[in-house]
């Protein structure tokens, strides 16, 4: 039988990040505002 030298790749299509991570990102995005004043940008996070 032919020998398979390649290692099985770890990447799989079923891999997904945790739901908590995605929900954090969406909340973070909603809370974040970037204000630009005179070439300087300020990040404002709304609680």
């Amino acid at each position: 039988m032919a020998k398979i030298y390649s290692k099985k790749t770890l990447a799989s299509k079923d891999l997904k990040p945790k739901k908590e991570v995605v929900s954090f990102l969406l909340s973070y995005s909603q809370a974040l505002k970037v204000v630009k004043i005179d070439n300087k940008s300020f990040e404002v996070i709304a609680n």
Partner: protein
Amino acid sequence: MADLHIPDALLVKNYVEGNENALATLIKRHESKIYGFIYSKIADRDISNDIFQDTFIKVIKTLKSNSYNEEGKFLPWVMRISHNLIVDHFRKTKKMPMYRETEEFSIFSIMSDDCLTIEGKMIVDQVEIDLKKLIQELPEDQKEVLVMRMYQDMSFKEISELTGVSINTALGRMRYALMNLRKIIDKHQIILTN
């Protein structure tokens, strides 16, 4: 489902204009590709989640500050960010502690070579000589097996073929040889150490 037909570029544009749902669609569309890519390099779920999160925090910040140039390459751009974060992660974990020599601290207190000192060499030589003398005290059949195994590096199969006994007998002789050596050492209270 209709979201699937909206191109990334349009979703990015919508998001920049304030449509938060566009980001949810973009994440949902690409999460497995990006997370899978990170996991293929990191092989740790928790760290991969952290890097995924940091990647999108950068994406969000860049998009919100209008610094992103849309060239129809949203996914390759995000992959690039995650790739850079993966490299950063490996740099951090592989960083070697750095020591600098000061007046109070000598670098040689943590550095050593594996070579024996002159005294150590003399002790090893003496132990070798003592051990050879002790082996001479063993019965002939046991001595033969021990010498072949330890000094001539032969396998028990080879020893059994050469001496004309079974492997089990050769193993037994080796066992008795070691037991007898220990007995002689105990009896004469010989200290073999290096």
